[in-house]
């Protein structure tokens, strides 16, 4: 085992002091050390997107980055979306539009969508579908996910 490194991760605007091995991925540290188990792991090699989080505002695969790389960066996970008990517009829209069944892929889709819509609220339908093709959902057939994200755009604009 290699030496542990102490560092501070800023997740959802809160600092977490962690002690990691360099080989620990950001996804594993978020889940196992910070206790934020909303971030899911499917494939652990970059294909499924269920581990998607925002790193300095951009959606990235948390299974393909090591936690030791991320000190001083702003990390956001699905736990950071709602304000208290009030769901984020994307979360509400996923519920209202039946954009989830088992829910395994949902945190990844939510963070992917949050990242792209914050950057580009006027994204075209074609580009949105292209971005959403990044993640895999085994249940819904995607149509309702696209619909939910589209419906959330208007609501996010109002906030």
């Amino acid at each position, binding site marked *: 085992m*290699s030496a542990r490194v102490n560092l501070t991760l800023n997740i959802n605007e809160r600092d977490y002091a962690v002690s990691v*091995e*360099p*080989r620990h*991925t950001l996804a594993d540290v978020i889940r196992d050390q910070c206790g934020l188990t909303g971030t899911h792991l499917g494939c652990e090699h*970059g294909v499924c997107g269920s581990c998607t989080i925002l790193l300095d505002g951009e959606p990235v*695969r948390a299974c393909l980055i090591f936690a030791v790389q991320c000190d001083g960066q702003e990390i956001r996970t699905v736990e950071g979306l709602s304000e208290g008990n009030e769901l984020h517009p994307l979360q509400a829209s996923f519920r209202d539009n039946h954009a989830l069944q088992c829910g395994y892929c949902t945190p990844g889709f939510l963070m*992917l969508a949050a990242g*792209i819509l914050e950057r580009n609220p006027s994204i075209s339908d074609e580009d949105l579908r292209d971005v959403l093709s990044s993640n895999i959902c085994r249940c819904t057939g995607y149509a309702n996910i696209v619909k939910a994200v589209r419906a959330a755009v208007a609501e996010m604009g109002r906030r």
Partner: protein
Amino acid sequence: MKPSAFRYHRPGSIAEAVDVLADVGPDQGRVLAGGQSLVPSMAFRLAAPSTLVDINRIEELGHLSVQDGSLVIGACVRHAAFHRSVVDGVPGPFLTRVARHIGHYPIRQRGTFCGSLAQADPASEWCLVAVALGASVTAASKRGTRRIEATDLIVGAMTTTLAEDELLTEACLPLPAPETRLGFAEFSRRAGDFALAMVLASYRVVDGRIAGACVAVGGAEDRPRRIAAAEMALDGNPPGAETFAAAGGAAAEALDPMEDAQTSVAYRRDLVRTLTSRALERAAA
């Protein structure tokens, strides 16, 4: 699976990075750029580097600018930088269209142009662009720096002529003349997958006839390459469906395609035939 243990360095400058690489390179040390190829292969335990040299915080590797008619791309420039036009004229939007075929949006937020060249995946879009447009790279080590032509760098599937202690610091992509037409086409089974084949075509039209044609194929053989027979089928002929089809036929014939359980040699040839015509049509549009 989880990656095996490694030591971690995060140098702040090129000088520091090559110092570390001189030490750890010969002992299974590796550069960590975007990690979008290296980390999956570590998760599969196909790679088990002793040390990673993380270059992501080296500011002097973040440059992206035009110098003497070439686009100079620092080692930390990510695929996503090309989501917007990075240069004026035809090449800017062209590179944007190509970039959108690389994996998915979140992959492009991390993966780098130079990392793609160092990885030398046969189906890498940037490797094809580099070979087609005559790019070169700069490699730095404690021993000094050298310039390597893309065709001398990429010598086989996942195989380059970079030495263990060398850091690829930048790529230099000559920008085609303003009147050059550029087209790209690829085929993959699902959005974001590595392509089964891809074609980049470029040419000029002089007095109604094609001149300076370039047809380069990626994803079909162990590395991308220009196909002289297809270029000969174009030069001197008027652009149009008939000429393009002849070039497609010549490209398909000249190839020695890879084969796997899902993709036969004949299928890849067919793909290249069609994709060549398509890339040429897109260039004409």
